[in-house]
């Protein structure tokens, strides 16, 4: 190794570490400090008062049970679908599976807007029922109830179950079940004693991930739940922004961080167990084609229903954005995005948010690719005692809530807290772990002999990288980039705290519009959500197009 390399490599590897230290660990440390220490002394009494209050425990209790209920609902819907995808072959399977993934990549504000468009007071179902039954009042009042929160959470996360459990299920060797059947197990016992225990690690890991997503849910609860419901994440935001009680917000952030960190650790363990090569078989061998017309009809009906439920809110969103009001089909709300009339709640024409979002997303993509790929190379090196602690450090931001991060920036960044670049930096912290998790498996599966071959054939190190790594890992990098782009576009919690009023992103504008009265505001929210939905949908198509097999976790 030359001297230049000996200096350059550690510098390169230090880059993500420095970034993490400045933009992740330092803000978190500030939160800690604000929670416990102010005016030169430890302030454990206010924290103690908060922790002793019924309000605090009610908050924890609600956050937990709504996450449990959401996870249960998600499993109820997701497991049968996972089974169908794992065990049956049918025409258009890959398209149908991709369609079920759409909700997962949708930004939370888009889903919230879509649910109001379908189930709100002036939502499509209420309008139809009122016309049909000639009612004066909308018959369905789900907004502001726990039900719409649970439904939205299930809607979001069903594809996690389908992908994780279904993927694992389709790789289970059918001979195991056949062996049990030959040994005399009937179908029910076969499921309980063979299939379920084998599936258990993947079900547990996927459920925990869903639970984690619901536990830290922000946009859905804030927008659809109304003032009555608050998860920890929502309460952190309210304490910080509405009540200006930063110590309380900081203490709640700390509690949430500890709980999510425990869950992340558990998840990583379960995930490692679920990815054990359990004598896996290729999917082609395990899936069967249905023969009888009845069975085919049943399959078609089930999948059709599932797709309808998953796509109805999104289709309604697009439909309502051009039909809201009594004027028939109109593009008025889209046109209004470019105006900033005096009565509008916005500081800038909403259309500017599209430009902001795209610029932030582009910056986030570049930055998170740079840091994520360097991190992946660092993590892919042979593990030694000195580097074993790196992996959890790099994945730590994955379990940290966006609102906490935003709060940390407000507390830690001083004069920079209104800087324009803070938004892509916050987005990068959220997106980079996804880049690492998408890119690292591809990098690890790259045969080191290919690089050695190139070197022996006369390629110097940089040339080896250009000739071997770049072309082979290009697709994985593209998928990672699309993830980063989509995450940045839809990011809501941190953006709400760190964007300046005059440089909002699309989700921030949608939230502002949704929380103001008036048909024009609502129509603009729907129009903007539709635009965001289409961009996210296009990203998904890109991801599906370039995904290599089932490499990567997402």
């Amino acid at each position: 190794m030359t001297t230049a390399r000996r200096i350059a490599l550690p510098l390169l590897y230090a880059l993500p570490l420095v970034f993490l230290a400045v933009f992740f660990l330092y803000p978190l440390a500030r939160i800690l400090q604000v929670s416990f220490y102010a005016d030169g002394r430890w302030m454990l009494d206010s924290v103690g008062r908060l922790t002793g209050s019924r309000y605090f425990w009610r908050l924890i209790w609600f956050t937990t049970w709504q996450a449990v209920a959401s996870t249960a609902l998600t499993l109820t819907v997701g497991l049968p679908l996972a089974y169908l995808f794992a065990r049956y072959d049918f025409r258009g399977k890959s398209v149908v599976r991709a369609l079920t993934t759409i909700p997962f990549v949708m930004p939370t504000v888009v889903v919230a807007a879509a649910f109001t468009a379908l189930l709100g007071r002036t939502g499509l179902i209420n309008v139809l029922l009122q016309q049909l039954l000639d009612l004066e009042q909308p018959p369905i009042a789900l907004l502001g109830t726990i039900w719409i929160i649970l439904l939205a959470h299930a809607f979001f996360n069903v594809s996690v179950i389908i992908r994780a459990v279904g993927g694992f299920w389709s790789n289970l060797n059918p001979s195991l079940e056949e062996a049990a059947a030959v040994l005399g197990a009937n179908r029910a016992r076969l499921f309980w004693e063979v299939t379920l225990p084998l599936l258990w690690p993947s079900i547990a890991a996927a459920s925990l991930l869903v639970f984690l997503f619901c536990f830290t849910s922000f946009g859905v609860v804030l927008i659809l739940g109304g003032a009555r419901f608050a998860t920890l994440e929502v309460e952190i935001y309210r304490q910080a922004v509405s009540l200006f009680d930063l110590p309380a917000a900081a203490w709640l952030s700390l509690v949430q961080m500890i709980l999510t960190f425990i869950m992340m650790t558990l998840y990583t363990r379960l995930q490692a167990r679920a990815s054990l090569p359990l004598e896996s078989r290729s999917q082609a061998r395990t899936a069967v084609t249905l023969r009888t017309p009845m069975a085919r009809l049943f399959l078609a009906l089930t999948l059709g229903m599932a797709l309808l439920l998953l796509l109805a809110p999104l289709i309604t969103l697009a439909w309502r954005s051009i039909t809201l009001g009594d004027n028939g089909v109109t593009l008025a709300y889209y046109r209004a995005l470019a105006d900033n009339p005096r009565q509008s709640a916005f500081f800038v024409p909403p259309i500017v948010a599209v430009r902001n979002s795209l610029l932030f997303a582009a910056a986030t993509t570049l930055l998170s690719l740079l840091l994520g790929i360097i991190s992946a190379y660092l993590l892919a090196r042979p593990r030694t005692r000195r580097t074993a602690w790196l992996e959890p450090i790099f994945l730590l931001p994955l379990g940290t809530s966006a609102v906490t991060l935003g709060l940390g920036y407000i507390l830690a960044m001083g004069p920079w807290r209104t800087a324009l670049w803070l938004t892509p930096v916050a987005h990068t912290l959220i997106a980079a772990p996804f880049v690492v998790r998408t890119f690292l498996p591809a990098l690890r599966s790259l045969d080191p002999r290919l690089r050695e071959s190139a070197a022996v054939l006369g390629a110097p190190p940089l040339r080896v990288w250009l000739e071997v790594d770049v072309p082979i890992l290009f697709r994985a990098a593209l998928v990672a980039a699309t993830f980063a782009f989509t995450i940045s576009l839809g990011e809501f919690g941190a953006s709400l705290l760190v964007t300046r009023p005059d440089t909002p992103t699309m989700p921030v504008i949608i939230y502002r519009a949704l929380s103001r009265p008036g048909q024009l505001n609502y129509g603009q929210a729907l129009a903007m959500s539709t635009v965001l939905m289409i961009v996210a949908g296009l990203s998904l198509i890109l991801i599906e197009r370039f995904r290599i097999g089932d490499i990567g976790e997402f």
Partner: protein
Amino acid sequence: MTDPSAPSAVAPLLQVEKLTKAYVPGEPVLRDINLAVASGEIVCLLGPSGCGKTTLLRVIAGLEEPDAGRILYAGADQRNVSVHARDMGFMFQDYALFPHKSVGENVAFGLRMAGQSRQAVRARTAEMLELVALGGYGERSVFDLSGGERQRVALARSLAPSPGLLMLDEPLGALDRTLREELMGEVRRILKAVGVTALYVTHDQEEAFSVADRIVVMHAGRIEQDAPPQVVHDHPASAFVARFLGFQNLLPIATVPADDSADSSAGPMLETPLGPLDAAAIGGAVPSGARLLLIRPEAARFVAASAPLPGMVIRCVLGDSSYRGSHYRIRVTTADTPEPVALVFDVPAYRLHPDGRRRPVTPGDLARNRQVTLALDPSLMTLL
């Protein structure tokens, strides 16, 4: 054949001196390796898996750094020469063909790295594919090739830039038996046609014997024997080499009796578990420190119990026997020695009858527990 220990007139192309390498401290994979390879020679590194032969190749190629020792190539120390700047080629066990490049692009890679003109690259690529009998395959994807074809592409790719020294790591290891036997001769033909100096790693003795000019047997990070194939076969340097080559009849011998007064025409007498043996019958001098007697499996012949015969006659009880086409492999236990000795022999499946005709040996002749008398030919014995 050159004697590697003797100073040769021409300096060897590759000289490895006192090479040591340990992945885990205290568990060396290579211990004090000394090796010289002359220009144009094909040297096989033969040994069981884990003996360090692949590591030795990787260290010579610069893919691993040695802990101690020197590698001289054409007289120059390679310590500070990086992998890509060494004049060496390497063919990996599973070929490591670039999956994102076509067959032609794979072969052309090393030529492009050497900065050759596009025309020269194209011509040389076609020539190399021709050499390995894959002319016209340039446009194909490496995924469309059979195992044997991939092997040829890998060989063409590593030969294309004309490396001074080519290293091949189990080049036939991934192929099935029939194909492997077919390609053994083919690989030697190609290597000799190009005239490249080659270091060839294998764990298959048959492969080593058919490819090598010289065989280096390795065991536990050390070189056990470094000699031409015939010498390795006829005079294994150690019990390990003998066992690795498949010889099973290795008997301990007691030190030569100190009978200095005996006349010098007869060799010293050896004490073996089968009885005394005249060392002269085996072929002359007893190597100093010899402790084992190797009896080759083809040394035994059935004889009538009473026949007076030269050499060594033993009475045995037959154990299992198995038919191997041209011969039977029989397991016997000696009956007339102080301690029963288990031996394995290959006896011809046909035997010569007094009427001059050959008759097949029947399984009945080899029934279990039958008492037989065997004559052992001392010229098929070796002292180690």
